[in-house]
């Protein structure tokens, strides 16, 4: 049982999250349903980044781009009267995958710091594109005309139903990514991260595999974008601001890279911490900043590393 404790942590986390809506109702604190729904949506984005970052070694400093594209896809369809959720979300995932294919095709040729910079550059371009798209609110952003419709099956306007949908999707995404990284495909991208010359020498060309991982990751993050826009019901190019990419990156590292479950933990701690600190003082960033530095300096394997440390390979 190599991943025994990690599985237990995940199960515990899911049970805890599942208990939030009734507990919040009991305590008369419905706000926490919203907060944790937001946490879970970002957790999906963080897990998607973990696929290419933790397992594939690709430090994308522009992951917010797919969050944005997913949100824009849903909103644009809604503006033109298409409210069918299945259609909207498929478009969000599809558009994100297309974009990831284009960005990845160019970026994956570079490596190291250049990869970080080029992914950042592409996201900056999209950010400025978003600002100049007046039809969809430009910099001001715009309200989502109507939440995605699922023919009476699920009502996203109902906070609790939406919450459990997000929880379900989060569990699915985590299981899917786990499955993926243990498959033949996953072994190739992990091998290429661990030792690229060796991987090439035994006959793998890492490029197409990395690109495929990049595209899958973009697609999942696009789904998170579709969820996020339904959560906030408000579209803004700020979704693609470079600091947002930094936040997602930090969630992954905080929770523990290459652990799938870790990023969920990272999203939870970062967003709840941010919420608590900003309630406490307007100068909350002076605490959050050093916290980031300390985590990087002293908790390199992230929170996951603390919780299931003894199970690391080797």
């Amino acid at each position, binding site marked *: 049982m190599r991943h025994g404790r990690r599985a237990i942590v995940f199960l515990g986390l899911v049970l805890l999250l599942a208990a939030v809506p009734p507990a919040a109702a009991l305590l008369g604190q419905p706000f926490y349903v919203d907060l944790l729904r937001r946490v879970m949506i970002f957790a999906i984005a963080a897990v998607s980044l973990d696929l290419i970052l933790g397992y594939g070694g690709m430090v994308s400093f522009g992951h917010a781009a797919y969050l944005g594209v997913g949100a824009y896809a849903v909103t644009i369809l809604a503006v033109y009267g298409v409210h069918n959720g299945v259609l909207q979300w498929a478009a969000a995932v599809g558009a994100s995958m297309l974009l990831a294919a284009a960005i990845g095709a160019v970026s994956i040729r570079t490596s190291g710091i250049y990869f970080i910079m080029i992914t950042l550059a592409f996201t900056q371009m999209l950010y400025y594109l978003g600002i100049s798209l007046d039809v969809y609110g430009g910099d001001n952003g715009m309200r989502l005309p109507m939440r995605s419709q699922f023919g009476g099956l699920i009502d996203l306007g109902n906070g609790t139903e939406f919450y459990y949908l997000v929880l379900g999707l989060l569990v699915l995404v985590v299981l899917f990514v786990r499955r993926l990284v243990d498959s033949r495909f996953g072994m190739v991208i992990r091998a290429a991260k661990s030792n690229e010359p060796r991987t090439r020498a035994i006959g793998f060309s890492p490029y197409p595999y990395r690109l495929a991982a990049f595209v899958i990751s973009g697609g999942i993050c696009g789904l998170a974008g579709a969820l996020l826009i339904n959560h906030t019901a408000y579209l803004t190019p700020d979704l693609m601001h470079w600091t947002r990419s930094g936040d997602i*990156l930090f969630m992954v590292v905080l929770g523990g890279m290459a652990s799938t479950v870790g990023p969920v933990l990272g999203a939870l701690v970062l967003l709840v911490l941010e919420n608590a600190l900003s309630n406490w003082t307007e100068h909350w960033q002076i605490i959050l900043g050093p916290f980031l530095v300390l985590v990087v300096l002293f908790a390199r394997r992230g929170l996951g590393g603390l919780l299931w440390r003894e199970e690391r390979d080797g």
Partner: protein
Amino acid sequence: MNLQLVLEQLLNGGQLGVTLFLMAAGLTLIFGIMNLVNLAHGSFYMVGAYLAVTFYRWTGSLVLGVLLALPATLLAGAVVEVIALRTLYERDHLDQVLATFGLILFFNELTAIIWGRVGLFTNLPGWLSGSVDFGATFSYPLYRLVIIVVGIGVAGALWYMVTRTRLGMLVRAGASNRTMVAALGVNIRLLYTLVFGIGAALAGLAGAMAAPIYAVQPGMGDPVLIQAFVVIAIGGIGSIRGALAGALIVGMVDTLGRAFLKPALATLISAPAAQSAGPALASMLVYLLMAVVLVLRPEGLFPARGR
């Protein structure tokens, strides 16, 4: 479009270029020698600006203010290096990006606490505030000419330092072979702290010179930082020559794009379409340029050798 306007815009581009060069030079030195990606470099730009304004107010002299801000920023850089960044040299770029991202938040908030959130503004002293007339119709702000001259002077001094002095020799050697420099019996930690401090001071100089013309406010370093990264990615990370070339290219492209893209587009497509596409494209232009450069030359235009 007249020649005079083009000339004026070229000067504007040059001024942005030297500012970016001062930022990029430190960034690329620090990367080349210590292999550190320092997102907090923009914070030194901000710190330099704040200190220059503060000293300017104390002493009543802008020149003195800027001159005092330089060693102070150098010191600030050295302190940050010793306290927080030293342990990051052996880490991967991801750790560095995140830790220095945290430092940005810290510095932005710290300046907000010390100086408040309201922008600090200073006026140029009288002798610097006018404009220089070239002929009857063409004039240019004097202070901006001064910035260009100082920038060129610093670029020259930096070139001299890197190619002609012992420190420069160590810096160049350190960039290509760290263990060798250590073997020479040089105190490598001290060398690193010094180089980091110099890099910070260069950024501080850029900020200090910008202080009298821009708003000095928390977070003012962030947009400059992103542009400086574009500069060094285009020029080739770790190369001073690349930083200079990249800075001038980005300065020109950005300035000329903002000035002439809309009228140029208007001749191709309809005026309203140009009205909306022009500014959007102009703000995306340098990123587009960077992507194209990296596609054609994944290591930038002037890749640093020996790494």
